[in-house]
């Protein structure tokens, strides 16, 4: 069972182990008490069955950590203390000295997570090779312990200079604090992020410390409620990097679950990629307020090693300095404010603009009947792409006249027809969304034309054809239940760990034997940790990698590890070529970090038990089904290329396995509508809808 708590809805996906059938449930989220919605969703599901014998596995995606950092109501961050090297108290506040908006004279730094008076320093110094220059003295330790004891802090972060090279001082401090103040939560930088660059390491440590009490309290409460309702399945939480961790592990590393929600959508797409043996997928998730894109290669969602928590994005790219750097791996997604609720407006220059403001779920689009501001959903309705009477299979009535009036206001201002305005709104939102797809492909050195687009979220299937066409993509997939697809990502779960150790040596200076021994020892520890979290031992696999760069550069690429120096250098040259278009043979290659990722299936997870049956879509393109126009449940006027045409509307559930529909057409389902654009064919592949561009188009 997977439960994904989002901003507006909490989605549940459950797999019936006896039948292989997927059951879904959607309930409103309860932002002030997010665990409530989880229990609500479970209760709703239970009420649909006479009896649920047992829940074998419970995977969970939560926005609790992000919301806490964003300062959401009811989630005040706790007071914490930071211990750092004397003379460097302000590193955490100064950051990298840049400002996040160049032309904003009123720009602010992100609110500091630890106040200056709670930043304590100790006299000590270690150099970059790990040599102790100034030993940490007992008097300093005692002073810090007593000062912290006098403060009412919920957690302590420790970050000393060069502790990645030698953690002896951080350990001594942590032990002393633990002994002096029993129960105190301590995060030390050499444990959570043992890599160089003091600001990023300190920030990661502080973010982890400040989240510890909040995530601990949330998970405790959730588990208590689950027990009280007799749901006894072990609880797993999706991490930002797309692996899951047992709740007990998450409590010590809460900074690893900040991007929990977005990761589960990408992981659902990655699982789909594995199932279909697809080499290159682009996951595209469009909800009510945002659209997210990510690349998936050979069933693995691409991961980046650092992000800014609670930071802002500007047209899909992260704004440096707007958030709190966290050096934990996360699924590399680009995000833009574009969704069904995104508001269209006309700016001072008389130009039509779409976003970034969103009407969200409340008041929602004009057609929901509580607002008169035109949104993307209203535009889709005016164009006939959405059902003009109701959504959610009839459960939710919409006011088409109000949507039209809202669009009309804008249309009159620019002296055009309501339909042309609606088409313009859709064009502009498609344009904004195409950009995030470009960011995760073209800007990362990948060619989008070789990808299959997977469109989900409530709005993805409505816009999929236009986006594919814009990027030159030939084929797209709409999964079963696109509206709760992210929750499905919690079903095929594996537990994972990943960590980096600082190396900082050129390839020529690495002792291959020693490196091999260290990796082997780390693997043993990781294996034991995963088994403890319930992983099925034979399924555990490891990935060893290096973070490497050319000498003189200050940014790294992650490459496969090899004990042979030549092979490492070849890997690096190749990676540099692939990413940046050139390499520099003969230049010294430096290894900055040694990265180990471990993964294993959870013994009780459904993927170990049952595999839903789906036929592969590969080679499907070769066979050409004859398009059919029959079988439509109804027709309705659809705005296509400047005029209305009577287009067939199909019900997804009624589509047989041999269905092949020629666009323009509409396919309606409970949680989403798919718009098959002119020039595209739609066919059914198992539980998926497959969209292909017609060669004659």
């Amino acid at each position, binding site marked *: 069972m997977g439960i994904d708590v989002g901003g507006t809805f909490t989605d549940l996906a459950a797999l019936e182990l006896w039948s292989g059938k997927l059951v879904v449930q959607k309930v409103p989220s309860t932002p002030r008490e997010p665990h409530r919605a989880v229990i609500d969703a479970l209760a709703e599901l239970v009420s649909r069955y006479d009896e649920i014998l047992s829940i074998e596995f419970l995977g969970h995606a939560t926005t609790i950590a992000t919301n806490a950092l964003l300062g959401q109501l009811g989630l005040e961050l706790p007071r914490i203390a930071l211990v750092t090297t004397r003379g460097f108290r302000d590193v955490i506040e100064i950051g990298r000295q840049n400002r996040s908006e160049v032309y904003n004279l009123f720009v602010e730094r992100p609110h500091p997570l630890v106040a200056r008076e709670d930043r304590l320093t100790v006299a000590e110094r270690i150099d970059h090779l790990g040599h102790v220059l100034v030993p940490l003295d007992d008097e300093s330790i005692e002073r810090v312990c007593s000062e912290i004891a006098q403060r009412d802090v919920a957690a302590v972060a420790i970050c000393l200079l060069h502790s990645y090279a030698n953690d002896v001082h951080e350990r001594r401090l942590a032990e002393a604090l633990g002994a002096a103040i029993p129960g105190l939560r301590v995060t030390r930088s050499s444990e959570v992020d043992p890599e160089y660059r003091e*600001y990023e390491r300190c920030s990661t440590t502080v973010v982890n410390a400040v989240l510890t009490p909040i995530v601990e309290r949330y998970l405790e409460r959730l588990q208590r409620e689950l027990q009280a309702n007799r749901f006894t399945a072990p609880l797993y939480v999706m991490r930002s990097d797309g692996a899951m961790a047992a709740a007990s592990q998450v409590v010590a590393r809460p900074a690893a679950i900040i991007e929990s929600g977005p990761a589960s959508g990408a992981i659902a797409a990655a699982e789909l990629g594995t199932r279909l043996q697809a080499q290159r997928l682009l996951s595209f998730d469009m909800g009510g307020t945002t659209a997210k894109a990510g690349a998936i290669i050979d069933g693995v969602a691409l991961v980046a090693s650092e992000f800014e928590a609670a930071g802002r994005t500007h047209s899909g790219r992260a704004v440096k300095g707007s958030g709190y750097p966290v050096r934990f791996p996360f699924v590399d997604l680009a995000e833009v404010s574009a969704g069904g609720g995104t508001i269209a407006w006309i700016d001072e220059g008389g130009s039509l603009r779409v976003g970034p403001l969103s009407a969200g779920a409340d008041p929602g689009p004009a057609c929901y009947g509580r607002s008169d501001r035109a949104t993307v959903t209203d535009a889709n309705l005016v164009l006939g792409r959405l059902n003009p009477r109701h959504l959610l299979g009839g459960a939710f009535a919409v006011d088409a006249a109000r949507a039209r009036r809202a669009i009309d206001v804008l249309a009159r201002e620019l002296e055009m027809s309501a339909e042309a305005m609606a088409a313009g709104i859709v064009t502009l939102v498609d344009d904004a969304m195409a950009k995030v797809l470009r960011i995760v492909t073209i800007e990362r050195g990948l060619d989008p034309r070789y990808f299959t687009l997977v469109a989900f979220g409530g709005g993805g299937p409505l816009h999929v054809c236009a986006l594919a066409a814009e990027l030159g993509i030939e084929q797209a997939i709409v999964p079963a239940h696109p509206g709760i697809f992210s929750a499905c990502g919690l079903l095929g779960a594996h537990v994972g760990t990943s960590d980096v150790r600082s190396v900082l040596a050129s390839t020529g200076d690495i002792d291959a034997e020693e490196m091999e021994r260290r990796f082997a020892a780390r693997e043993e520890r990781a294996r034991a940790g995963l088994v403890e979290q319930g992983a099925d031992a034979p399924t555990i696999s490891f990935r060893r990698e290096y973070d490497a760069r050319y000498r003189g*550069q200050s940014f790294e690429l992650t490459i496969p590890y090899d004990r042979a120096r030549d092979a490492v250098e070849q890997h690096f040259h190749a990676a540099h070529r692939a990413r940046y*278009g050139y390499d520099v043979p003969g230049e010294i290659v430096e290894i900055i970090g040694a990265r180990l990722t471990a993964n294993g299936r959870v013994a009780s997870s459904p993927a170990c038990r049952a595999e839903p049956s789906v036929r592969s879509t590969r080679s499907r393109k070769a066979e050409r089904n004859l398009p059919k126009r029959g079988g439509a449940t109804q027709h309705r006027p659809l705005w296509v290329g400047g005029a209305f045409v009577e287009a067939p509307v199909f019900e997804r559930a009624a589509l047989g396995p041999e269905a092949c529909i020629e666009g323009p057409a509409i396919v309606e389902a409970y949680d989403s509508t798919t718009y098959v654009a002119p020039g595209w064919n739609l066919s059914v592949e198992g539980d998926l809808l497959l969209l292909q561009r017609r060669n004659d188009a």
Partner: protein
Amino acid sequence: MTDPITTEVIKNALVYAAEEMGIAVRNAAYSPNIKERLDHSCALFDRCGRLIAQAEHIPVHLGSLPWGLHRMLEIVERDHGGARDGEMWVANDPYIAGTHLNDVTLVRPVFARGQLIGYAANKAHHADVGGSVPGSMPVEAADLFAEGFVAAPVRLVRGDCVLDEIVGLFRANSRTPDARSGDLRAQVAGNYTGERRLLELYERYGAQTLDAAIERILDESERRMRAALTSIGHGTFAAEDYLEDRSGEPRLRIALRLTLEEGCARLDYSGTCAQVPFPLNAVFGVTLSGVHYALRAVTDPTIPMNEGCFRPVEVVAPEGSLLNPRRPAPVSGGNVETSMRNADVVLQALAQAAPDRVPASSGGTMSNVMLGGTRPNGDTWAFYETNGCGMGARPARDGIDAIHCHMTNTLNTPIEAIEREYPLRVVRYEIAEGTGGAGRRRGGSGLIRAIELVEGSAHATLLADRHTRGAPGALGGEAGGLGRHSLTRDGIERPLPAKTSFAFEPGDVLTVQTPGGGGYGTG
């Protein structure tokens, strides 16, 4: 003709094309300066050389890139009969390209079916272009030629082949030749990306629609800029501030009369001091960038940056003055110091019209630290960084402490990286508490960074300002604290001037304290 939706799509596509050029440059660049600090800018121009889109990371390139493009095209036309299909032209002469020698500008004429349809251009900061000191910013330079290698416009690409002999010339004139050829290659890649996107738009929409859309886009920016300028107010407003000469006297005056009238801004720098025989002169392109930075920040930074934004703005700086020097006056510090002061002066003039929209003066210096030397094993090294200062207090908020203000926005170098790569040890890095000017809102405090030389021998060069005259406060706010330099040798701390260079010995500790920002209001 074109409809508003198509115009909007083309406008977004042009901005995205410029951004994608920037990413292509960053991806292909070798040096951290471009790759990580993003010290580069990219732009697209129409066939008349009008700016149609710009992705700017560093404000000092704003306005100076279009100015430089015009100069370059003039010279290419006059001396070489114009730019041809398949070529790219490169230059770094500040009096042509618009900033300082480190900024190398590369221009690509874009042709479709034999017709010129526009230009793709970019400018990137090359860490070393020769001259008497590493980093090419010698404080003692008496003229441009002492600052480094000067390139007048010359073809870098011909028949779509990079001319190796020109790359070789850049390599031969730099202490870091591999990074130079790597970064030039990145600039070439950036222009090809811009060309590809411009051609795609041309193919998709046709010349007529594209031209019509560009007219509308420029007109729209102009209209919004005029409206924004009108909203500031009207009248004539005077402001002045001073830079300190090498003896520390704050006598290098920047004087401005700003006239706001019917949506137009006229900036007259008459009364500004004459050019000086040391590198604080700012070429006119740099002067323009300070003006456009300040106007953009006070009006509306969401206005699409193109030629339309420049139309209602007129800038006059007397020839031979600090802000419009005659060649070959030295200019390397104009970019980093004079540009900062100019931005504050323009902002203070605007503040008289709209005091609630402008902060007090900033710390106003990039506090440049250039260290270089030899390790005991004979290896040489060079280190350059700029340091943040205190931001001026804002009408409703305190100024931010220890931050890059106005014309710069780069990332600092991590201490753990410095100590790994150079024979240096950072012994202190903190906010200089209480150095912001007092007032109803407090100015931001400067920072303190103390660096020790661990071994070998070295030479240090410092270039900073506001060491004798603090950042003025606004509306009765107090001035920000002064910057301070000192050298601790054998346990004795001695003060150092703001602009100096000296032998740096093992065990010496150099302490840089940067100035605070001005306070805002009384009480």
